[in-house]
């Protein structure tokens, strides 16, 4: 888990070992890695997003910005952004439930149940974007 490790001894044999183990792929490891990667992707997005929103104060440049976001590559990005948000939100919610409610459910079952909810949200929420991309690439005259 990602607590600050600043007070830990740096280089005993033991910490070398445990550092090595951290990278072994186990079941919960996937959930954790994906949470971390989606979190970092969202931070990157937020920086670009807020910086771009400087255009809000000028009609012409805002319209240019938003028109640009309707290019196919950004529409694909929009779908990936939805996937990152949904995964990070639901997995984060799972962590909060376990931490705050002291819940000790069947961890694997909870993970897969929320995974199912995430898949539905991504498919339903992403449907308009994906279908307009399909129109654009395959059906447009």
């Amino acid at each position, binding site marked *: 888990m*990602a*607590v*600050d*490790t*600043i*007070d830990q001894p*740096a280089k005993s044999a033991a910490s070398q070992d445990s550092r090595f183990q951290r990278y072994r792929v186990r079941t919960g490891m996937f959930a954790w890695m994906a949470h*971390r990667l989606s*979190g*970092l992707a*969202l*931070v990157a997005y*937020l*920086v670009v997003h*807020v*910086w771009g*929103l*400087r*255009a*809000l*104060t000028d*009609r012409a440049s*805002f*319209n*240019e910005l*938003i*028109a*640009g*976001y*309707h*290019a*196919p590559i950004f*529409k694909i990005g*929009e779908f990936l952004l939805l996937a990152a*948000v949904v995964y990070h*939100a639901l997995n*984060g*919610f799972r*962590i*909060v439930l376990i*931490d*705050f409610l002291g819940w000790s459910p069947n961890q694997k079952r909870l993970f897969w149940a929320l995974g199912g909810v995430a898949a539905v949200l991504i498919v339903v*929420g992403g449907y*308009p*974007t994906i279908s*307009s*991309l399909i*129109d*654009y690439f395959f059906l447009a005259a």
Partner: protein
Amino acid sequence: MASRAASTSNAQSWFLHRITGTFLIFMLITHFWVQHYDQQTATISHDVLSTEQIENDVLPGYTPEAEAAVEARFGETAEVTPHDVVMLRLADPVYAVLWKAFNILFLIVALHHGFYGLNNVMSDYIRNPMARKTAKVLSWSLALVLFVVGTYSVLVAGW
């Protein structure tokens, strides 16, 4: 760094990180609803524009609901552009203040959660204390700049 002080404040920040995460669920749902799904206010439409169209200043098309709302607000001859659609909220005579407040609160919570998380990740991988401190100062400075810039844009737009 004094280890006791450091671990107390870490526990508080860790707790706060969970609180901000929980808040973000509600704020992101609102944000996505407004930006993508509400037929009247969605900034992003379902159009996909080609490079030529974008170069020729073609704008995405909006729903009849959005057109009607923009014309009701800004006059029958108003053009329905992305900016006008956003101004339905940010220049609303009554609710603009609430939307601006929501955006600024969202901005603060997202920046806090995101940059605290980023610092967690960085201190997992950066072992050198000096480098870690530098990364911390630089990343929080970026967050501060984004807070100032973001607050300014959302306050000035439409007022």
